[in-house]
Structure formats: C-alpha cells, structure tokens
C-alpha cells in the first residue's frame, strides 16, 4: 500500500509538469489548428532562463528565500512569453494563409534551430548543468511515503497556474476573444476581434506556462541540458492528444494520466525498460476507443 501511494505521488508530480507543457500545445492547436513543435524548446529555454537568473536574483533576495524563487519563476515565464511571441511573429505569422503542413514543417525547423543553436559552445553548450537550488529542499515522511517539499511546490504551483488559466480563458474579455477565434476565426475578425493580437497572446500564455514547467522540472530533477525538451516535450504532446487536443482540462488530465502510467510501468520488474513504450501504448488504446481523446468532443468549444 505504501508503495502504491508512493508511486501515485511520484506519478502525479511528474504528470503535473507534463500537464503544464501540454497546455501550451493544446492552446495553440485550439486557436491555430497546428502543433507548435518548438514549444518543447521553449520549455528548455525556461529552465536555462532560471539557471542564469538565479545567481542574479540571489544578489537581491537571499538564495533559498520564497521571494527569490518567485522572482526567478516569474522572470523565466516572462522571458519565455517573449520568446514564444517572437517565434510566432517571425516564423508562423508570415505563413498564416499557407497550407497547414507548411507551418508544421516550419515548427519542426524552429525546434531544431533552437536545439542545435543552444548546443553550440558559445550559447549553452551540450553538457548537462546543475540547476541552482531555489528553495531549501526537504523530504517529509508521512506514514512511510516520502514527499519532497519541491513536489509540494510543483503541485501547488500547477494548481494555481491551471486555475489562473481557466479564469483567463473563461472569464475575461481576452479569453472570450480567444475562444471566439478558436471557434471561427473569420467571424471573430468580423466582430472586431484583433486576430493577430489574440494569437500573440495565446503564444505568450502557452510559452509562459512552458517556462514555468521548465523551472519546476529543473527544480525537481536538478539536471538541465539543451535537449531536455525533446523527450519531455514529446510526452507532453502525447498528453495533449490523450486528453483531447484543443481541450484545456483534457491536457491537464492527459498529463497526469501519462505521468502516473509511466511511473507505475517503471515500478514493474521486467517492464521498467519499457516505461515510455507502455505510456505510449496506453495512448494508442485510449485513442482506439475514444478517437477525440479523453475529454475531446468533436468541434465543440475549443481553445
């Protein structure tokens, strides 16, 4: 029983990070109907932003303080938002009226460009680095189940960000505009919605979440490197599809399901080698029976 609870906890904390990244994939898909493959690299850039910001912030706020960690997190999110908007402006906007496949291939190109530029020794270099400790990490023992303070931070922050996102999308003017663009771009434009601004905003929001995911991932696992987004980004993309791409709660649920399944598969002797494979097999199974994903409904409200 303890083992089960421990695994559940491990899976949830991994899944929470997948969920944060999956939200970015799903939001862009909702509005533009294409997969932004460069999203996983924005996640990586978020972790590196945190890596370079931490020593600077530590000069103002004592290292290990909550204020310092919050400043690092928010700055990394802001940097990623700017990067996301820039990518959209430079790479995707000129192709807005082209076939969707063109944009998709461009997205792969942008992703590879970021990955290989970052690996150059004048940028980050390809060697792994140790992420600085933003908060004092301790491990609590609750009835034999070990829970790290970092894990608690990850849970709380993910919940806060999810609630914030839901609020923005459902209850604000710009969120209504996002949903309108998602529903019918031309009609939204005729109603006076500034399409370009809404798309930029969508990218800013999604990229900020990826940045937060990057910092949280780096806090939990301490190792960062330019290719860290490849595997994690792929999982998050799968999570978005699993939950029903274009559906926000679906992306969050998909992330959690994937994280939990993967962790439990890792804990089975003889299967641990296939933990990724099993996670993807679950995806195939779910899509066989629910082609639109867990929460996806064909052509109903999508953002």
């Amino acid at each position, binding site marked *: 029983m*303890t*083992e089960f609870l*421990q*695994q559940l906890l*491990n*899976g949830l904390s*991994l899944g929470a990070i997948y969920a944060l990244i999956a939200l970015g994939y799903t939001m862009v898909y909702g509005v533009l109907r294409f997969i932004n*493959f460069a999203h996983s690299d924005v996640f990586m850039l978020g972790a590196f932003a945190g890596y370079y910001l931490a020593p600077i912030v530590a000069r103002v706020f004592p290292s290990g303080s909550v204020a310092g960690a919050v400043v690092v997190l928010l700055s990394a999110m802001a940097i990623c938002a700017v990067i996301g908007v820039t990518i959209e402006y430079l790479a995707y906007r000129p192709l807005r009226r082209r076939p969707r496949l063109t944009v998709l291939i461009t997205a*792969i190109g942008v992703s*590879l460009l970021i990955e290989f530029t970052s*690996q150059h*020794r004048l940028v980050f*270099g*390809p*060697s*792994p680095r*140790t992420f600085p400790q933003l908060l004092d990490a301790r*491990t609590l*023992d609750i009835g034999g189940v*070990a829970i*790290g303070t970092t894990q608690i931070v990850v849970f709380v922050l993910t919940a806060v960000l999810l609630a914030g996102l839901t609020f923005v999308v459902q209850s604000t003017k710009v969120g209504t505009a996002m949903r309108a663009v998602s529903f019918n771009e031309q009609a939204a434009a005729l109603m006076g919605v500034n399409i370009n601004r809404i798309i930029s905003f969508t990218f800013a929001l999604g990229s900020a979440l990826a940045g937060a995911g990057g910092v949280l*991932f780096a806090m939990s*696992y*301490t*190792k960062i*490197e330019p290719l*860290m987004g*490849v*595997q*994690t980004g*792929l999982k998050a993309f799968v999570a978005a599809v699993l939950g029903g791409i274009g559906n926000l709660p679906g992306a969050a649920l998909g992330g959690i399901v994937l994280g939990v399944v*993967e*962790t*439990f*598969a*890792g*804990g*089975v*002797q*003889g299967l*641990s*080698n296939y*933990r*990724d494979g099993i996670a993807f097999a679950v995806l195939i199974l779910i899509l066989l029976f629910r082609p639109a994903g867990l929460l996806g409904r064909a052509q109903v409200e999508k953002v």
Partner: protein
Amino acid sequence: MNRRHFLHAWTASAGFLAALLLSGCGPGGGGTNSATLRIGEFASLTGKEATFGQSSHNGTELAVMELNAAGGVLGKSLELITQDNQSKAGESQTVVNKLIARDGVVAILGEVASSRSLEAAPVCQNAKIPMISPSSTNPDVTKTGDYIFRVCFIDPFQGTVMANFAKDTLKAKRVAIFTDVKSDYSKGLAKFFKERHAINGGTIASEFDFNGGDTDFKGQLTAIKASNPEALFLPGYYTDVALICIQAKQLGLNVPIFGGDGWESDKLMEIGRDAVEGTHFSTHYHPDVGSPRSRQFVDAYKKAYGSSPDAMAALGYDSAMILADAMKRAGSAEPAKVRDALAATRDYDAVTGKITIDPNRDASKSAVILRVEGGKLKYLETIAP
C-alpha cells in the same frame, strides 16, 4: 522520438556520404609519407559524458606533447587530430570514417564509453587501422577484430571485483541491480556482477532498468526500495548515477550504493552533492597510489592542466604511449606492422600499471576501489587480477 530519430539518421547518413565523397579524393595528405605521423582520436568532448572525453583527451594530448618534446617517433613528430562525438550514438562512426578517409591517420585512439567504441571498431577493422581504446571495459569491444586493442581491464574482472566487494566489505547478501539498457557497458557489467554474486552465495532482491539520459527514476527506485535490498549495484555513467542517488535519497532508500568505473568524474559530486556521499565504485587508477612512473605523470599533468588526473586521463595517456612504443618496436608506422607490435606488447611500464596485451588484445590489470568522502574521491584498496 520517431521524428528526431528519423532526422538524426538522415543527418548521420548525409555526413557519411560526404565523408565518402571526400575520401574519393584519395586518403588525405597524412599517412606514412609526410613529415608528421597523424594519429586520430575520437572522444566525447561535449555532452552527457563530457568529462570522460575531456580527461581522456588531456591525457592523450600530454603524451603526444611529451613524445614530440623528446624528438617524436621514428624521426617524425606526432600530429593528434581529435574529433568530438558529443556523447551521441551514431556520431563515432561518422567521425572515425572522416579521420581515416580524409585525414589519413595511421592509428585511432578512443573511446571511453563501450557503446561508442563498439561503433567505431568495425570501421577501423575494415580499414585495417589499429584502434586502441583507453578505457572501454565491455569484452565485446576487442572481439570485433584483430586490429582492436585496449589498455584497461574488462568487465568480467570488474564485475567480480564488485561482487566480492559487496560480500566482503558491504556484507550485503540481497543486492538490487539497476541497469542502463542503453549502454553496452552497463548491461555487460551487470551481467558479470550477477554471475559472481551468485557464486558468492548472494541473492538478487530485484532487477530494474533505466534509459541513460532519463531524468525521472522514481518509479523504479520506489519498487527497488519495496524489494528490501541490502545494497544497490548501479553500473552506469556519472550523470545518471548522480540523479539516481539524489532520487534514492529523496525516497528514503538508504542502502549502500556502489558501481563501476563509469562513475568517475568530478561531475558526480557536483550534481550529486551529499546524495553520493559514502558511495563506492571500482576504477582503474588513483593518483595517490602507484609507481614512480605514475608520480611523474601526475606532476606533469598538474603542470599542464592545473588539476589532478583521474583514471580516464591516465588511460588516455597510456593509450598514446603504448601506440608510440609499438611504432618504435615495429620500426614503422605502417598499420599492419604496428598491429603486430601492439599484439606483442609485454610488461610495458605504464602509468596505470604494467601492461601485457593478452591473446584477446585486452590488458590484464588491477582495479582500485574508491569511496566518495567529503566531496572527494578517497582511495580504499587495490585488487589484483
């Protein structure tokens, strides 16, 4: 991964084609006729196992500098041409092809990781260019063919050493094994450890696998903890090992963790911090112990690079020195003659101990066991073959 695999495969094959096209212009200006002798080296100078490549390269470079300062080999100075494979699968083959076809090197030195040596070995064997691996311990490396040599011990010995260590020093009977399935080194070492451990009367609490380069190991570690082992054997490379030790500690898996020479790097302590304290591993060499030859090397290395050499540096140095020795004895740099001379190496006084190349083209040498203490590697004992 599919998308990336496809792209990687594509770029790798494009690089290979380019190398072939270049080689069409005839083996470059190097070879045996020019004023210098070109030696090729491939190493993981960057990436996941960067410190392996850098240490090994420093050692090799120091050897070449010393040889050239003493008048070179066969009246010619040595030119070391180094290629980086970025610790990536698929790259070694490309860069070694390039070294042989474009640069016309007479011999190849490299690599530390067995998987990458195994990748390059068939290329060298087909081109009939001698290759000396400084520190790949998987037995299959030299089985590729009669042009492939190494200057370190092999994993059947290392596995035995660590199984005996578990029995005698750790007094651990129930051991869990956690293997990197992406690494030939890790799989081989785990297998040989298990064989010896069974002979020693030990049992296996559980066996789990991970993929090198992963970041989350908690699924496996939680299950390992539930299997109640007395110790955890972890044959892997330092980056993964450090992360695993951190997560093991977070999960309250407080048993001795021990492994092999893949652990040796300052990065182990840098990433792992207090989580790797008190762990043990076996390796080839420690600067605190050794012959006058070794002390001489340590001084020269400190002067050149400002730090103490590790086992990878010492073996890199030995690989270049033993090549030069074979060339001198052959009286030629012709690959076939150098090969024969290498195979005939007997009792060569190397930094890491006496080297005799056995019929399998491996070196039979002793191992040392180190302990992480206060963020440093402390020498514990030497175990003779």
